[in-house]
């Protein structure tokens, strides 16, 4: 039968080629026009340790890593034991017969990975052996893979030809070895190459690129999983005159340094994860109070406290929206796909410049470590905003009025004191009631500048809607499509803009009988925020450190939708 989509999980020890095989497969597939997504997990130790990576190859754009595994590639016995349960009925298990023997599992195909690789004279071709084997299972034409290998290893070196030969041989050996066994999954439908260039990258990389595309000039950070790759990317690439990327001594330094740079006129950003974001609390309040543009990225991991550094969760929403004492309410943009990592970062920088204050950009471990092909952003189409800079002479009242005003640039006329105490128009500290009223209203009025009606919706007429946020978008949308197929009457709303929310979307949600919010936290954080905004929201929560399974969402959403339908009938 024809397949549009298949999922392979590679499991073994760190260092056995688990990751390179997954990425190789993904690259091979994307190069011949398929869509691919890989999701890597971390072993909790530094070297070795059990690890696995999943690759999903599809004719259509991919939304998530996928629930059920079609093929498990088990590099060792432990991997087999831990993952064989995930293999769906009719699935196949390729096991490294150089490492262990497997009897009594009818799904098993032994593949002497190391030995076959060796026989090609190129030990590093082990992953090609595996890829060849997989290609056979889904009947991927040999030409496809050869093409990929040729492309990949044509680097204008003398050794090219030889390497290409050995790799093609490795794939062929893998292919033949498996074809000997009668196993097959079916026929992968021919690829429908997306038009336009594509990029294959991870969420953290897309986010970094987006920030740079929006004109980022200044970045400081402190290492923390899963945000560290952003720091490393910036230190390598945000270089040259007028740029600065640096590792500071703590997240307290990160946020206050970023505030200094934002004040001095730069587009500045820092990224961290839960514990680091909590340390920034006081500094975030200062940014709001002194009106300093900057972007703070929270690549969420499992919490609280040191929590679960290598797991994914969506539990920082409340503390990012209200991060500090006093009346502070920060803008929040939460990205849901690798592509949104790019465009969300662009928006976050634009928002910071537009309203002159800190913007929280929420990502998640599951996005940060997900590699995926996305349409290459067209920079000429990206609208980049910069703050309104004061151009006049001295004697300027930087904080005058109840609304946004132009921001002076140190070195130029317009000197004032950026002040974290309540202040008057020129930034001197004051305690007068009228001032506190004026400045409080001024700070909140600026949020209005960020109200944009950017959101997705389907079946707006339905009284029930599914409204996920962040990376739950992927599985939620897969589930939603299935529910629609099944004829369930339910609408779909999604936005990256969690504060301020798109006013029209909020209006529509307020009219719903029930708004179902699937989210990866215990408290149902977004659900409770929606309720406080007058929406009849109920959350579907999960707090396992893992993303939702599509199948779980399908059943839990339809349950809730039907229940409310029954109620409506009764009423």
């Amino acid at each position, binding site marked *: 039968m024809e397949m549009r989509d298949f999922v392979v999980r590679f499991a073994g020890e760190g260092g056995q080629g688990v990751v390179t095989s997954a990425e190789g497969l993904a690259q091979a597939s994307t190069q011949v026009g398929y869509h691919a997504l890989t999701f890597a997990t971390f072993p909790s130790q530094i070297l070795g340790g059990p690890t696995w990576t999943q690759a999903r190859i599809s004719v259509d754009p991919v939304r998530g890593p996928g629930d059920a595994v079609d093929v498990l590639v088990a590099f060792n016995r432990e991997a087999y034991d831990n993952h064989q349960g995930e293999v769906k009925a009719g699935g196949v298990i390729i096991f490294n017969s150089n490492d262990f023997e497997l009897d009594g599992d009818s799904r098993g195909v032994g593949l002497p990975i190391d030995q076959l690789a060796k026989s090609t004279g190129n030990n590093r071709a082990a992953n090609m052996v595996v890829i060849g084997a997989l290609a056979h299972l889904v009947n991927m034409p040999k030409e496809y893979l050869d093409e990929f290998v040729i492309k990949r290893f044509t680097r204008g070196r003398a050794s090219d030809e030889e390497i290409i030969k050995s790799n093609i041989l490795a794939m062929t050996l893998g292919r033949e070895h498996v074809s000997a066994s009668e196993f097959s999954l079916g026929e992968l439908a021919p690829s429908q190459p997306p038009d336009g260039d594509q990029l294959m990258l991870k969420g953290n990389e897309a986010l970094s690129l987006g920030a740079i595309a929006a004109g980022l000039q200044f970045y400081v950070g402190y290492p923390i999983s899963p945000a560290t790759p952003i720091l490393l990317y910036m230190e390598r690439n945000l270089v040259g005159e007028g740029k600065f990327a640096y590792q500071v001594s703590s997240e*307290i330094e990160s946020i206050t340094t970023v505030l200094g740079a934002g004040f001095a006129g730069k587009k500045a950003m820092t990224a961290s994860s839960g514990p680091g974001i909590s340390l920034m609390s006081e500094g975030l309040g200062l940014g709001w109070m002194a009106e300093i543009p900057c972007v703070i990225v929270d690549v969420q991991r499992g919490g609280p406290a040191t929590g679960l550094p290598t797991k994914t969760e969506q539990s920082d929403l409340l503390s990012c929206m209200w991060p500090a004492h006093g009346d502070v309410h920060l803008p929040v943009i939460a990205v849901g796909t690798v592509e949104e990592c790019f465009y969300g970062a662009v928006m976050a920088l634009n928002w910071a410049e537009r309203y002159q204050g800190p913007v929280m950009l929420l990502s998640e471990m599951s996005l940060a470590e997900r590699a995926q092909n996305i349409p290459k952003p067209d920079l000429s189409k990206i609208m980049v905003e910069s703050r309104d800079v004061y151009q006049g002479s001295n004697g300027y009242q930087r904080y005058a009025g109840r609304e946004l005003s132009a921001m002076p640039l140190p070195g130029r006329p317009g000197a004032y004191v950026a002040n974290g105490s309540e202040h008057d128009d020129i930034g001197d500290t004051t305690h007068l009631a009228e001032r506190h009223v004026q400045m409080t209203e001024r700070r909140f009025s600026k949020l209005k500048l960020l109200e944009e009606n950017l959101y997705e919706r389907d079946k707006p007429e339905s009284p029930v809607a599914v409204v996920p946020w962040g990376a739950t978008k992927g599985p939620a949308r897969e589930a939603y499509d299935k529910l629609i197929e099944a004829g369930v009457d339910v609408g779909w709303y999604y936005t990256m803009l969690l504060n301020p929310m798109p006013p029209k979307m909020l209006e529509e949600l307020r009219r719903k009988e029930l708004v179902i919010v699937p989210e990866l936290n215990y408290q149902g954080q977004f659900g409770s925020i929606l309720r406080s905004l007058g929406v009849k929201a109920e959350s579907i929560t999960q707090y396992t450190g893992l993303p939702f399974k599509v199948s779980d969402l399908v059943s839990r959403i339809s349950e809730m939708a039907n229940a409310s339908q029954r109620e409506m009938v009764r009423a």
Partner: protein
Amino acid sequence: MSKKNPEYDFKWCPGCGDFGVRRSLELAMIDHLEESGLPMENNVVVAGIGCSGNLVHLLEGPQPYGFHGIHGRSLPIALGVKMARPELNVVVVAGDGDFLSIGGEHIGPQASRNLNVCAVVMDNGVYGLTKGQSSPTTKLGEITSSTPYGKIEMQQNPLELYLTLGVSFIASGFSGQPRLLANLIKQGMDHPGFAIVHVQSPCTTYNDTFEQIKGDAKKGIEPSLWQIPDEHDATDRASAYGLIQQGGLPVGVVYRDEARPALNQRLQESWEKARSRTTEELMKAFEF
């Protein structure tokens, strides 16, 4: 901006040492500008929270830019300002509590980086603005509102701390000598690296040390203040260490190392190894 702004109602107590520091800073900034020919707006004063930090609102004459943030964070804010705009003259003003207690964590890193800013620390051995609690420089055994039975921890020695952390310019001064102090601050601003001018600026309300510093012949009180002799070789770390061990309140430049490149200079150099790419070029790496 006191004179010009009736709405700003904080005032230093009569006789507060901070008056002298303000004057010194005004003089130093003006000197510095006259040399550089730059306008006052080229100066940024990053202030800590305390009576001392309020200096940023009390400067008279032409106004520099200011950043009056949160308690203890003036150094990292200054790091951001300076590395964003190396052409600006960035000055930090903070108290002993702000700079050495809650903000103490930031001294070492800026010293290691040799961040090119000048920090003026106004040490009165007490928390003034919160009304008289003990600070890191409050002496062992002293009774303050927060040490009713005497302080039971040792005081810190800021000068030795700065030297150990690798601060590349260290001066020690007294608020009662505004012109001399102005000169030290000016040198600190001119120094191509991290400069700290540590000033004894007595709190006449909660810890009046004027007498002890200046001495009182009649009462037979020896002054703790002493001028650092010209012979002192401030470029020699060992001599600086020895000088600090002598105690009291030395006035002058304790240590200076102008050879060490500042952070922005080292950064420039490191770029030679780097290649700056456009966004388009950066995206290329992810094409297939």
